């Protein structure tokens, strides 16, 4: 019995070059058994004049190697993003059930990101403020309805897909920015990374820009209560590749596929081999020349 091959990627920023490598690496042979999840930040709406074409191009490539494409828009995407491909399913505030041979998987999703997780002056189109009670209630209700609907189909597993992490899990970073210069400054500061001298008492300004938990408290409470089997998210680039298990849920931060903002941690994807009996998870990178000598590898990929 062949396992369902579930691939999860995030934070693509319409990098067609990496997606092309991905297509050549995965190949079309396993397409019928493969479901690809795109957990947001597919393009950058505010920075690209060809945003719609970028997205279409990205999905056309992914479609070649995937039987189904499940996606949610991230904070850099258009909230109303719709992909017109027969095998593409928008999971934002929705749910679906997919059946492969003898394994049945329920999916639900939530796109965008909490406003507190990005820098205040960032022009991102899909943000919401979970500190406003009416918004928080709305999000909770939608998540609740969708997981209950998915559960009614009696799936073997339920997979929650969001763009952002739950509070406290693989979510520690400075607020997210897409501005390269700010990222460069952050990298520099962090790489110098000694433990901060104790004499240096923090000012308010320092606290607001220092690493902290960027995740959503609503999501944390929801996951704790409903316990989906798998929670896939991206958004916090620095924590990409981290895996955690809490109670019945396995969490995966799958960011980031694009080599931006950090070449060193980019090109990442998660692979889940799902059978009725178990789920085997592993992270890998879109690297086609693995046998390249170390010095050439550094030159090429850093």
């Amino acid at each position, binding site marked *: 019995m062949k396992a369902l091959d579930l691939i999860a990627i995030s934070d693509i920023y319409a990098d067609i070059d990496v997606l092309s490598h991905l297509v050549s690496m995965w190949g079309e042979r396993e397409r019928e058994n493969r479901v690809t999840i795109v957990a947001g930040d597919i393009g950058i709406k505010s920075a690209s004049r060809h945003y719609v074409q970028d997205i279409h191009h990205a999905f056309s490539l992914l479609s070649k190697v995937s039987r189904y494409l499940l996606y949610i828009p991230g904070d850099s995407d258009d909230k109303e993003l719709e992909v017109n491909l027969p095998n593409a399913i928008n999971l934002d505030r929705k749910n679906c059930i997919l059946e492969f041979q003898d394994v049945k998987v329920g999916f639900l999703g939530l796109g965008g990101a909490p406003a507190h997780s990005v820098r205040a002056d960032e022009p991102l189109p899909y943000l919401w403020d979970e500190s406003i009670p009416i918004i928080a209630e709305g999000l909770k209700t939608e998540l609740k309805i969708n997981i209950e609907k998915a559960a009614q189909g009696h799936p073997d597993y339920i997979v929650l897909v969001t763009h952002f992490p739950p509070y406290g899990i693989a979510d520690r970073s400075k607020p997210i920015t897409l501005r390269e210069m700010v990222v*460069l400054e952050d990298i520099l500061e962090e790489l110098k990374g000694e433990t901060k*001298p104790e*004499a240096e008492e923090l000012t308010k300004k320092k606290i607001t820009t220092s690493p902290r938990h960027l995740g959503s408290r609503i999501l944390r409470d929801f996951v704790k209560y409903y316990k989906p089997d798998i929670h896939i998210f991206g958004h916090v680039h620095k924590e990409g590749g981290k895996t955690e298990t809490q109670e019945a849920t396995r969490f995966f931060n799958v960011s980031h596929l694009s080599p931006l903002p950090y070449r060193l*941690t980019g090109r990442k994807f998660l692979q889940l081999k799902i059978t009725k009996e178990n789920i085997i998870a592993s992270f890998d990178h879109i*690297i086609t020349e693995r046998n390249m000598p*170390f010095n050439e590898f550094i030159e090429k990929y850093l």
Partner: protein
Amino acid sequence: MDVCGFREEHGLKDYQKPIVEETLHEFEALKRQNVFISLPQGTGKTIIALAALTKLINDGKVKRVLVLIPGRQLVKQWMEKANEMFYGLGLIEYAKLSKEGIEKIRGSLKHFGAAGTAMTMQSFKNVFKKEYFTEEDFDMVIIDEAADLVVSRDFIEGFRMSKYLKGLEKWQNPKLFLLPYHVMEKKIIGLIKKFGKNSKLIRKMVQETQFICTVRDPEIIDDPPINVFVETLQDNYKKIKTSVHRILNKYGIEGYRENLETLLNPETLDRLKKIYHLDEDTLQQIQVSIVKYILIQHIEKWFLYSNRTELSRSILSAQRDVEEWLSYEDKKLNKLVEVVKNHLDKNEKVYVFSQYLATAELITDFLTRNLSLKPRDITLITGLDEADAQFEKLSSFKRVGKVLVTTPVFGKGTDIPQADVIIVYTPPLSTEKLFQVVGRIRGGDVIFLAYRGYEEAIMNQVAEQLRRAFASAGVESPGLNRYL
């Protein structure tokens, strides 16, 4: 009758007595405004200062003293030590920056006969700015670990010196500065310049054999792929740095070569753009190159200091040789387990130092698992701990612990004489800081770990440097007084 003094079981050591006398002579007979005492770690600079202070209080020359200390956790330790060794001092810890808090302290100073207050240098900055206390409130100031805020040898040192204890230089009260012996002359000169020429430096290399550490030859680990990775990264680092210099040469840009990182500052870049007419592409090329070489240095440290978790999450893990290297257990950590076990078997307490937080956590976890240590056996102290927690954890290690793992959190004046051996897993970034770190244990073995090859050569040099420093103990070099 004396109002304060040593408690019964305490007193001055022979070598401390003349230093106290000299200090008092400088203040009383020669009317010095500033006395700088520079002695090796562990020789009791604080005790010397307190002994001088009690004499001045008993003679009625000092009623209120202000004690300035670099960090919050050290204020607690300082007061604890003072109360343990001296009676009648009753120093009050300055804890909160509020007018009410100040009034409480002022009240205690006035009505309960407290000899003064101790606060952090950061608190002093705020207090001075808001004029909660002025020089009229005190008769004397003691500044412990005085070189702490100005020890780094970078380009902004001049700026830091101007900010350092800003305002205190205008106070006319006698000031006693305590500095470690290894502080560079240049820094002491800077301090003296700032606080005025009516100063005296008492700088002595006191020979206390029990404080001399034995620097062992580095423990060597065989793991050949490491050399390939690290040397390749080093070559790359040099190449990128050269390319940045080449751009600077091309445009005739001078003044940034010592600290290329300053070129990442947007204001600096704007300046370069205007003065040298650099285009956007060139500016970006400079920035990207600098970030890249810093990144490469960092990756090198991941390889050398067992940060396999970060390496596994990076694209490097997809390279064939790295993937293979990551597939087997970390040999340096295994060597660490072996060395720690040897010492624990001899009933010795072990202190493991790591410059980096992630490595310190990793070490703690690895040792706990591989040596079946109980939580009370191993203590991890990092900057993530609050000052009070750091203090409590350290006390716990001193009382019942077997292994202590820390980051540079104790860079300033904390003693750990209970440790019999220090293992420097990732060395500090400067020789001065290394002296501070190994000096904490007050004598014992100093052990470095190194991969055979590239790292071995470096660690041999570091060990040699430390040995030479310990060997030169006893040679007095007070020549700095020529600057006074």
